[in-house]
């Protein structure tokens, strides 16, 4: 049993190193279009992971993740306008969005189940409408240009790749830390966690703040990369994207959200060229299948495939 697990881990690490090496040399082999696409997929992967920390580990089905994404994007915008550098601006995006996560989290954690879904959905609609209504601040649906002083596609790609890796390492450490274990316990049995003396609400707010901060980082990177932010960043369909990517990739795993975000970004780009409007239908069908037939998500399927691949069973 033990050897089997460690063999799985070794195989997993080997595959990860292969993927990393591939990503590392990518800009030398593919064109501009694909470099941009992979950059976008990585940023959206960070965004999906930020939702996964709240849902897959914290057990809260939040449709409000776009709020933090939007806050991060506009923080970067105003930070650049104020003349701050990229590093400081990104940290500021994480911080401000994290504070939003803390505040929103404190307001909503008392609510549970389907009502939690509703209240976060309505919350993100409210933020979207506010962003739409306050054109002086956000530029409304037309948006605003982010004065980035952008350095170049390949440099930006390596920046995003480096940040994504750091986020993956951070998240892996977090979910295996004592704090991460408490998150999982609350997700699996909230009442028991409460009876054991953990202040459930405070942990949930913490999960929200961390998830919010990471979503802010993703929003900031996205605004930096595209040079643009608009009220649409707050729209709840953007929250729904994170939900779908995470569920399809595999909720409650660190790599799953990246798999989901990357795969669907590619599917979207490929399908929109061939078949136009069919993409949402396919996503819907996949989501239904994921929920009913393979709850582990694609990453769960992949792990199963890897496990069976070398014949390590028996």
């Amino acid at each position, binding site marked *: 049993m033990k050897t089997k697990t460690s063999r799985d881990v070794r195989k997993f690490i080997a595959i990860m190193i292969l993927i990393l090496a591939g990503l590392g040399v990518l800009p030398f082999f593919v064109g501009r279009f694909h470099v941009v696409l992979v950059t976008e997929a990585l940023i959206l992967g960070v965004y999906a992971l930020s939702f996964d920390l709240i849902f897959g580990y914290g057990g809260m089905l939040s449709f409000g993740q776009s709020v933090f994404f939007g806050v991060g994007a506009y923080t970067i915008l105003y930070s650049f306008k104020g003349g701050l550098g990229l590093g400081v601006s990104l940290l500021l995006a994480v911080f401000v969005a994290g504070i939003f996560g803390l505040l929103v989290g404190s307001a909503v954690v008392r*609510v549970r189940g389907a009502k939690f879904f509703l209240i976060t959905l*309505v919350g993100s609609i409210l933020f979207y*409408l506010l962003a739409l209504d306050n054109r002086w601040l956000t530029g409304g649906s037309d948006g605003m240009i982010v004065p980035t002083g952008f350095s170049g596609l390949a440099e930006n790609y390596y920046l995003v790749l480096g940040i994504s890796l750091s986020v993956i390492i951070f998240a892996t450490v977090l979910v295996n830390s004592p704090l991460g274990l408490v998150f999982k316990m609350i997700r699996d049995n909230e009442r028991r966690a409460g009876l054991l003396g953990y202040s459930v609400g405070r942990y949930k707010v913490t999960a929200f703040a961390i998830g919010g901060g990471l979503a802010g980082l993703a929003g900031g990177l996205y605004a930096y990369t595209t040079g643009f932010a608009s009220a649409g960043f707050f729209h709840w369909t953007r929250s729904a994207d994170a939900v779908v990517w995470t569920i399809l990739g595999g909720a409650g795993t660190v790599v799953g959200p990246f798999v989901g975000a990357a795969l669907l970004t590619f599917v979207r780009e490929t399908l929109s060229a061939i078949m136009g409007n*069919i993409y949402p239908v396919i996503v819907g069908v996949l989501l239904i299948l994921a929920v009913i037939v393979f709850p582990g998500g694609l990453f769960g399927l992949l792990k199963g495939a890897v496990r069976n691949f070398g014949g390590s069973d028996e």
Partner: protein
Amino acid sequence: MGQISKLAFGLLNGATWGTVLALLSSGLNVVFGLMGTVNVAHGSLYMVGAYLAWICFASLGSFWLSLIVSPLAVGLLGVLIGLLLKPIRKNPILSVLGTFGVTLVLQGSALVLWGGTPRRVPLPLDSSFSLFGTGYSFYRIFVAIVSGLVLFCLWFLVERTKFGLSLRAAREDSELSSAIGIPVFTLFLLGFGLGGALAGVSGALIAPLVSLTPGMGLRVFAIVFLIVIVGGLGKVWRSVIVAISFAVFRGLASVFLDSTKGLILTFFFALLVILVNPNVLGRRPANENKN
């Protein structure tokens, strides 16, 4: 327009829109309140009902047909969704995700089939009456009357018939209910059918008053879900009161401010209600609050 006629318009439009919202939310209430399953696709069923009305008008030549076609077809669709949800119906989070998938499929199919350009159905009753010097369409009054009638039938069905009694029993204790011979899963499917039929008829009724887009269902869903939750689960008449006050409030706010600000205020107050009193939403709110 003077202030008084503005007020009258805000009130009347709010009240008509409110009865349709009440119809929609009681459809959701049957599925969510009486069965505990969240059907995110409810709004999309309403969208399908509205497009069916457009098809009845454009291809079959009569809008009025849709008042029969929409509830039947959409009701059937509701039953199919119920069948699909069978394995996950008791898990609120999975049912939200699954029905959100259904929403994407319905909305995406509408986009593929009927395109993204807004469709319009002309008013089937073109007469109007004068209200403070401005014309007010009779069709809106007709909508309010039909919605009221359907709501009364629904109330009768849930509160005064054996079917309604079994529905309510299944909500209280589904295991005990099936032990005494109530076919709980059949009821579940019938409830989904009923919810679908209500969404279908609401869509058909509203079709001549709005422009139809594939996204219209999801936009209305959050409002309808809010109404069900603020009004409390299982009680049809409370959803009706909340729906009408919601729509009147929004109608007045839209007339006197603008429509975005009106929506912001309405959502804000609804959120406050839920946050201040989260147990408003519970199964037996009265008992929970006493403790």
